[in-house]
């Protein structure tokens, strides 16, 4: 019955669905921005003792944590029931670039073993890549006041100049990483 949901969804299905999620959140009096959860988690862990930035009303953020729980559950359901094959069909140019970087089996799963393989957890360099990447995302998102959902989707939808600047920043950072830094670390 769920077979029609199983192949990878094209962009013209996924994009409108994302817009729909944003409108649903607006309708329920909320807004679409995921990275605020990281701040809420800090607050829950007691970070308000170290910085006023974390003195927030956690109860007001409850819906946000529900979104997180839903995301995890969605991932689980998608994995268990909707995705018999997690191979990603990449363009030939990308596959070749990855081979040159030393990434074998490009697209065999959602994530490359060279970064997300379980054995990376036992090597200092593997752990550093994961931890530093995560820290950049967390720090950058709060410094910029939003992430992909808050700026690129919600912010641009509302024609906000600051969000446009942030999205330009996302791209400058992404291009620097992919073209200049990754060839140095892999």
């Amino acid at each position, binding site marked *: 019955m769920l077979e029609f949901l199983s192949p990878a*969804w094209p962009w013209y*299905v*996924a*994009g409108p669905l994302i*817009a729909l999620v*944003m409108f649903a959140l*607006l309708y329920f009096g*909320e*807004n679409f*921005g*995921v*990275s605020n959860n990281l*701040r809420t988690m*800090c607050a829950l862990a007691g970070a308000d003792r170290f*910085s006023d930035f*974390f003195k927030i009303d956690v109860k007001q953020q409850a819906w946000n944590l529900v979104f*997180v729980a839903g995301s995890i559950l969605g*991932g689980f359901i998608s*994995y268990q029931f*909707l995705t018999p094959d997690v191979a*990603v069909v*990449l363009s030939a140019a990308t596959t070749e*670039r*990855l081979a040159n970087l030393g990434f074998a089996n*490009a697209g065999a799963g*959602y*994530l*490359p073993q060279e*970064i*997300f*393989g*379980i054995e990376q957890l036992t090597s200092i360099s593997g752990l550093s*890549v*994961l*931890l530093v*990447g*995560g820290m*950049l*995302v*967390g*720090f*950058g*998102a709060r410094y*910029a*006041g*939003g*992430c*992909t959902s808050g700026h690129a989707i919600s912010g*641009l939808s509302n*024609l906000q100049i*600051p*969000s446009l600047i*942030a999205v330009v*920043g*996302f791209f400058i*950072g*992404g*291009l620097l*990483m*992919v073209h200049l830094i990754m060839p140095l670390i892999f």
Partner: protein
Amino acid sequence: MAKAEIISWYRIFEMFNFDAFHMYGVIGSAVILGIIGVQLLKKTKAKSLYGEALHLNPKTMGVYRYLLGGILFGLGWALVGACPGPMFVLLGYGYVPILVVLLGAVMGTFLYGLLRSKLPH
């Protein structure tokens, strides 16, 4: 998110190499529909379910914080191939190493909280 492969590290890598239209199509169509929808909602002065004005979360103007924060975010996004939403979806998929990325993201957020008063905004 999972089903359109936007949680895939490879798709992010592909996007920053301009090798495929997929990610641009996903984000672009979401934004175009978003712009049209938000403008309509504003014109009709739509209210939320609870009768309040819509929570559009306008940002204060500035350049440094958005540009610098954006660049740092982009560096991380491209390296680990995941922004905050997809990190949680990937966790649901059972990718254990994403826990380290999430730990880093929480630490990065905490670090920002500590340094906020010293940064240009």
